[in-house]
């Protein structure tokens, strides 16, 4: 592979997250290195999505520290995380249902657009120029993900697999440093999964985007990940390259149970 795995870009140290009395995450530490594909796996309710929510500022952990690009990150709101170059997709598709594919992907570029609403109201001039400049970028993403034919379709009318792809496009349009993917292949058939895998690998390879991936399909995870972290009941039970994790007795226990 051409890409080179770089330094640690996100470093999570002793993260604990509670909702009232429920402990979602307990004392979890792991890191993500630049340009790598880092997977988080674990049984249902293990705290995987909560982990992503901690990384992009939707949840604020009660304990622990997050270092982002070497600097300690203070309490951060989601839009601030977006400004830092963290984009994500959601487990249950979170597209803007009333808008077209094109508009949805254009929202991904909002942080790079500088015109204010008065310029938008007058439109002709600065706003139009900006709109077209960003449209060109968006069209690149559309081409990359092969969704040219549906760009003017309202997303609500699209089948599930394509919606997932549009959501990835929206995240990519932001040109993120880190892309958080929450079960990008859930509910897809084999063909759609293959496509999605190809896109994830291409994104990683082509743009050098660091990817943090949650996925249940072990075949996919073991094939495309550089390193895997395993959670169970909010605790970390395994961490390492796929081979290592596969043979970790704790992980096997969590997934298959043990004979008594």
């Amino acid at each position, binding site marked *: 592979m051409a890409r080179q795995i770089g330094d640690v870009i996100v470093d999570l140290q002793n993260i604990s997250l509670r909702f009232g009395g429920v402990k979602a995450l307990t004392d979890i530490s792991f890191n993500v290195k630049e340009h790598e594909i880092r997977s988080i796996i674990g049984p249902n309710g293990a705290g995987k999505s909560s982990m992503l929510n901690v990384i*992009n500022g*939707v949840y604020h952990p009660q304990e622990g520290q997050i270092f982002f690009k070497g600097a300690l990150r203070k309490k951060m*709101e*989601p*839009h601030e*995380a*977006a*400004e830092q170059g963290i*984009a*994500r997709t*959601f487990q249950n598709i*979170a*597209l*803007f*249902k*009333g*808008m077209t594919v094109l*508009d949805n992907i*254009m*929202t*991904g570029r*909002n*942080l790079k*657009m500088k*015109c204010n*609403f008065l310029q*938008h*109201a*007058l*439109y002709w001039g600065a*706003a*139009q120029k900006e*709109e*077209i400049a960003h*449209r*060109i970028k968006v*069209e690149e993403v559309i081409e990359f993900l092969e969704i040219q034919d549906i760009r003017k379709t309202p997303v609500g009318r699209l089948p599930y697999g394509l919606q997932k792809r549009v959501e990835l496009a*929206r*995240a990519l349009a*932001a040109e993120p440093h880190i892309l958080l993917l929450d079960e990008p292949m859930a509910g897809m058939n084999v063909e759609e999964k293959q496509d999605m895998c190809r896109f994830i690998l291409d994104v990683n390879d082509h743009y050098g985007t660091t990817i943090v991936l949650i996925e249940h399909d072990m075949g996919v995870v073991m094939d495309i990940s550089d390193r895997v972290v395993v959670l169970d009941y909010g605790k970390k039970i395994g961490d390492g390259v796929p081979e290592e994790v596969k043979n970790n007795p704790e992980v096997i226990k969590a997934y298959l149970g043990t004979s008594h």
Partner: protein
Amino acid sequence: MLYREAGQFKATYAEDSQIFPIRQDKIGFWLLMLVFGVAVPLLTNEYWLKAILIPVLIFSLAAIGLNILTGYAGQLSLGSAAFMAVGAFAAYNFILRIEGMPFLLALVLAGLTAAAVGILFGLPSLRIKGFYLAVATLAAQFFIVWALVKFPWFSNNSSSGVVTAQDVTILGYTFVSPEAKYVLTFLIVSFMALLAKNMVRSSTGRAWMAVRDMDVAAQVIGFRLMRTKLLAFAVSSFYCGVAGALYAYTYIGTVEPEGFNLDLSFKILFMIIIGGVGSIMGSFLGAAFIVLLPIFLDNVVPAIFGDALGAGFVSNFQLIVFGGLIIFFLIVEPHGLARLWQIAKEKLRLWPFPH
């Protein structure tokens, strides 16, 4: 057969993102502008201008305002009439108290005043949603009307609270005739509708719709909820404020705070529900529909049934038809007349072939 886009190729993104990408639409639009901008004031009589066309335009503007807030940004509001009242009384006071205040500037200031009040009453939207927010805006509706009655300063100490709008003068020309007032209203409303259309098709509009459709995702993608929602309240109230000022100055001439009551707010809400939630054109269709329907029923119902039903029946019948239509649209076509028009166009593109 006539409504085809065959042969019209878009070679640039600018061409692809026009308001009317299809040539026939563009022609239709300019014809419509000509008819309503030139032919109508020349050919129609005073009754049509004063009782139908001017109010339709003004309510369209208010409906655009509410549509920006409710249809695009997804924040339900029952305070549109109150923001109109703010605009009407602000314009009155600016013209009354500042010597030589130009009318158009007063109109803008009235809008800005309404926008400021709108932001204030939009603050609860940061914490509450849906019906609860609607109730919070209901507070705006009652509070503003109450304040305008309570403090006689707003109505220049008029004993009844009724104020009479001053003459509308722009660059030395005084707009007296209904034709002149109509043209003025038409130009202002068209211009503001264009600005609204531009806003909703660019990043501002996408931010509003993103917040409407999925606010967590909107935040994660980088929109700031507070700024986006308050901007929607401000722009929406600005539109309602200007509509209110026009209501006073080019439509009825004398206004009182009670004229801007909850009924009017509901009427504007009905306009966007029937016309089309989240559509600028729908705002016009809805306003036209709501203004014309009672007039239509007033003329048609007695003509069919004669006097046998009594005068009271006709007005009750209006309410029944209104209620029925609202329920019909909510169930059958939540996107209103604008959506029906869109479906008709899609069908027309294929007609007379089945596919």
